[in-house]
C-alpha cells in the first residue's frame, strides 16, 4: 500500500515537472516570437510616430503618442499632405505625387511586361522539349535563372552609355525596360514552376477537342495558372518599387522615382526628422498594405521551385 502511494506521488511529481517544462518552453517560444516581432515592427512604428513629432519630442526621445507627446501634423504639413494643407497648392506634394506616379508606372510597366514575356517562356519550358545548340530545357531554364547573379552595377554603366545613344536616359520607358530585365529571371522561374504543377491531361483534352496550342494556353492554362501569375506580379512589383541603383544612375528630373527622392532628401538639408519620417512612411505604406493583404502570394512567389 505504502509503496503504491510513493510511486503515485513520484508519477504526480514527474507529471508536474513535465507540465512546468511545457509551460517554460511555451513562454520561451512566445517570448522569442514577440521579441522578434518587436524588432520587425519597431523601426516602422518609430518612423510612423516620428512623422507626427516636433523637434523637442525627437530630441527628448518621446515614444508613445498622446502619452508623452502630443501628435502634430508637422511632418505631413511639410509634404503638403496634412488635413489643413491638403487643399492648398504645395510644390512638395506635387513633387512627391509625381515621383510616386513615376514609381508606379515604372514598376507596374516592368512587372506586367516581365509577367507577359515570362509566362510564355515559363509555359514553353514546362511543356515543350526545346533544343538550342547543346542546350536542352533545363539548360535554357538555368540560363534564364542564372541572370539573377548579375549585379546591377555590371549593367548600369553600359546602360548609361547605350541609353544615351538611344535617347532613353531619364525616361520612363527606359526604366520600364530595365525593371523588366531585372525581374524576368524570377518571373520565368515562378511561372515554370506553376505550369509544371498543372496536370497535363486538361491540355491534352483541349487539344483533342481541336483547340490550337495557343488557344489551349489562353483559354485553359492561363486561368488555372492565375495564382502563380499573381505571385509573380506581386513579387516583381515589390522588387521594382524598391529599386534604387538603376533609378539613381539612369534618371534625372523627369523620370526620378520615389526611392531616389527619399535618398536625395537624406543628404542635403541636414535632418528634418519629421518630414523625412513622413516621406519614408509614405514610401513604405503601400508595401506594408500589400504585405499584409497578399502575404500568401509573396510567400508562394519566394518559395517557387526553391523547395522540392
Amino acid at each position, binding site marked *: 500500500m505504502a509503496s503504491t502511494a510513493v510511486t503515485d506521488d513520484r508519477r504526480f511529481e514527474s507529471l508536474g515537472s513535465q507540465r512546468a517544462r511545457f509551460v517554460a518552453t511555451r513562454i520561451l517560444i512566445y517570448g522569442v516570437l514577440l521579441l522578434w516581432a518587436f524588432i520587425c515592427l519597431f523601426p516602422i512604428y518609430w518612423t510612423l510616430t516620428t512623422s507626427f513629432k516636433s523637434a523637442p519630442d525627437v530630441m527628448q526621445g518621446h515614444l508613445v503618442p498622446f502619452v508623452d507627446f502630443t501628435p502634430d501634423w508637422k511632418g505631413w504639413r511639410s509634404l503638403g499632405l496634412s488635413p489643413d494643407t491638403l487643399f492648398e497648392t504645395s510644390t512638395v506634394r506635387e513633387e512627391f505625387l509625381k515621383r510616386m506616379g513615376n514609381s508606379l508606372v515604372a514598376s507596374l510597366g516592368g512587372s506586367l511586361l516581365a509577367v507577359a514575356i515570362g509566362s510564355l517562356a515559363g509555359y*514553353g519550358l514546362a511543356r515543350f522539349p526545346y533544343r538550342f545548340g547543346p542546350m536542352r530545357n533545363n539548360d535554357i531554364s538555368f540560363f534564364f535563372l542564372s541572370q539573377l547573379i548579375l*549585379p546591377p552595377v555590371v549593367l548600369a*554603366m*553600359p546602360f548609361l552609355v547605350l541609353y544615351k545613344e538611344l535617347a532613353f536616359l531619364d525616361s520612363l520607358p527606359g526604366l520600364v525596360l530595365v525593371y523588366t530585365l531585372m525581374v524576368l529571371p524570377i518571373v520565368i522561374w515562378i511561372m515554370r514552376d506553376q505550369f509544371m504543377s498543372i496536370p497535363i491531361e486538361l491540355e*491534352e483534352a483541349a487539344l483533342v477537342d481541336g483547340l*490550337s496550342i495557343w488557344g489551349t494556353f489562353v483559354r485553359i492554362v492561363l486561368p488555372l495558372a492565375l495564382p502563380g501569375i499573381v505571385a509573380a506580379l506581386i513579387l516583381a512589383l515589390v522588387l521594382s518599387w524598391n529599386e*534604387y541603383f538603376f533609378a539613381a544612375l539612369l534618371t534625372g528630373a523627369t523620370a526620378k522615382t520615389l526611392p531616389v527622392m527619399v535618398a536625395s532628401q537624406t543628404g542635403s538639408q541636414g535632418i528634418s526628422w519629421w518630414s523625412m519620417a513622413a516621406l519614408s512612411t509614405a514610401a513604405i505604406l503601400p508595401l506594408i498594405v500589400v504585405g499584409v493583404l497578399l502575404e500568401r502570394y509573396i*510567400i508562394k512567389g519566394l518559395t517557387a521551385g526553391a523547395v522540392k
Partner: protein
Amino acid sequence: MTTTSPNVGQTFETVGVGTSASRKSLGRLIIIAGTLLFAAVLLFQVLYAAGVSASGFASWRPVFYAYFLWAASVVLGQILIRGEQGQRAAFVLPAVFFTVALVIFPTAFGLYLAFTDWNLSGSVGRRFNGFDNIVALWNDPFYWNALRNMVYYGLAVFFEYAIAFGLAVLLNADIKAQRFFRIVFLLPFMLSPVAVSWMVGKSIMENRFGPAARLARLLGWDNPAFFTDPWIARLSIEVMDAWVFIPLIMILLLAGLQALPKDLLEAARVDGASPWQTFWRITFPLMLPVSITAILIRIIFKLKLADIVINVTSGGPGGATDTVSSFIYREYRDRSNVGYGTALAEFYLIAIVIFITIALLVTTRWVSRYSTARAVDRV
C-alpha cells in the same frame, strides 16, 4: 531554336498541322524582309555615326525598334514555316530576344567598355587603352578593400541563416497567431532599402537622439557611435541588411520545414528522442538541400548590396563599409569614367561567376555524397 521529338518528361504528342508550300514561302519572305529592314536601318545609322554619310537618325532609337521588328518577323516566320513546331518555339523566343538585346548585348558591350578610357563628362570621348584599366584595377587598394568587405559581408550570411532557421522552427511549431507572426516577420523584406537607410541607419542609429543610441547608453556605452569605428560601422550595415533579408531566408526554410515527412519526426518522438536530438539528427540533415539553396540565394543577393551603404555611410569610414557596387557607384559619380568603372564591374562579375560555379559544384557533390551515406546508414 529547334524543337525535337518529345523526350522530356511531360510533353505533348500532337497532330502536326500541315504547312502548305505557300505558307512556307510567305514565312521565309517575312523573315527576309525583317532581316533586310533591320540590316538597312543598322547600316544607315552606323555609316552616319562613323561620319561616312551625312544623313542619319538623331538617336539610335530606330535601330532599337528595327531589332524588335526583326525579332517579331522571325517569330511569325517560324510559325508560318514550321507550323506546330513554330508555335511552340514562339513561346520562348520573346524572352530570348529580349534577353539577348537587354542583358547579353549590354554585358558584352561592357566588356568592350572595360578596355577604354571614356570620361562621359569630358570632351575627348572614348579612347581604346588596352589593359590600362586592368593594371589600374590591380593597383587600386580601395577596390581590393571593397572585395575584402564582400567576403566579410558574405560570411555574415551564416549568422543570418542561423537566426532565420531559429525563427522558421518557431513559426513551424504549434503556436497561436501563426499568420500574424508570419506577416510581421515578412514585413522588413517588403521595405525599400532606401527607406530602411533613413529609418534605421539615419534615425534609429543616430548618435544623439536615436533610440538605439539611448539603449546603448543605458547599457553602459558612454558615447555610442555606430558609424565611426570600422568594425562597428561594418556591423551596423550588416545588421540593417540582415534585418531586411532574414525574412527571405526564413520563408525558404519554413517552406522546407513544412515539407518534411511528418511520420519520420513522429517516429523519432515515439522512440524517445529529445527535441534537441530530433533536430540535429533528423530535421537539420533533411533540411540540408533547402538550407544550401537558401544560403546561395542569400549570398547572391548579398553580393548586390549597395543601396544601404550608398545612403548611410557612402562607404565610410575610410572605405570600411564599402561594397563593390557602392564603390563603383561612387567612382563613377566622382570621376564619371565609365571605362574604368565597367572594368571593375566586369572583373567583379567574373569573380562572382567563378565563385558561384565552384559553390554549386561543391555543394551538389557534397549533398549527393551525404545523402548516399545516410541511405547506406539506414540500410
